[in-house]
């Protein structure tokens, strides 16, 4: 654990990142990780088809709702400006 931490500590320079709309795609890996770990705590058995399916469904549901909120906010912005 300490070795892993020291390896991570070697990363001293932030990644270069362009500030545009594509930056929101960084949410996708995090959503997949959150859904997978959450389902691992909820389901009795992991490493089976049901686990993969439920994790994928939860990930897609979160992404879908986030996209929906983005669309609603976009149209709200168009109305008020």
């Amino acid at each position, binding site marked *: 654990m300490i070795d892993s931490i020291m390896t991570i*500590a070697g990363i001293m320079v932030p990644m270069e990142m362009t500030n545009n709309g594509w930056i929101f795609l960084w949410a996708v890996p995090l959503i997949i990780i959150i859904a997978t*770990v959450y389902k691992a705590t909820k389901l009795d058995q992991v490493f089976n088809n049901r686990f993969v399916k439920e994790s994928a469904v939860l990930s897609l549901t979160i992404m879908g709702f986030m996209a929906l909120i983005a669309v609603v906010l976009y149209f709200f912005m168009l109305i008020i400006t």
Partner: protein
Amino acid sequence: MKQEIKLDNVIYLCLVGLAGWVVPGGGHLMVGRKDKAAVIFAGVVLAFAIGVYLGSVGVVNPVAEVLWYIPQMMVSPAVKLLGMITVKNGIESFGKPNEIGQIYTSMAGMLNLLCVVNAVYLANLKVSAKAEKE
């Protein structure tokens, strides 16, 4: 029937919670759920590593970013080492990489907190089942 609270059981539950905090998935490993422990360890460590990769070790800053540091500490007490390295070397992280890195590392910590609570719950179920048998 009222269940007696035994000191051994309380210590066991505390140890499970502590193991889950020290190493993500450690609590589930103690309860005997190796499969769940593997998924939790991989998920939490991956999220934390991506966060640090994006924003550098400067995303863990116990002085300038205390509110982000609290959930980051939920990943493991070893995160304190990263905080010490950041402060000692004066490493700073700014802009979008810093923001996204902080979100990733803090979410990793919050996920681990969820897993610690779940591990303690599973341990309690195990203790209760054992008590009922006796």
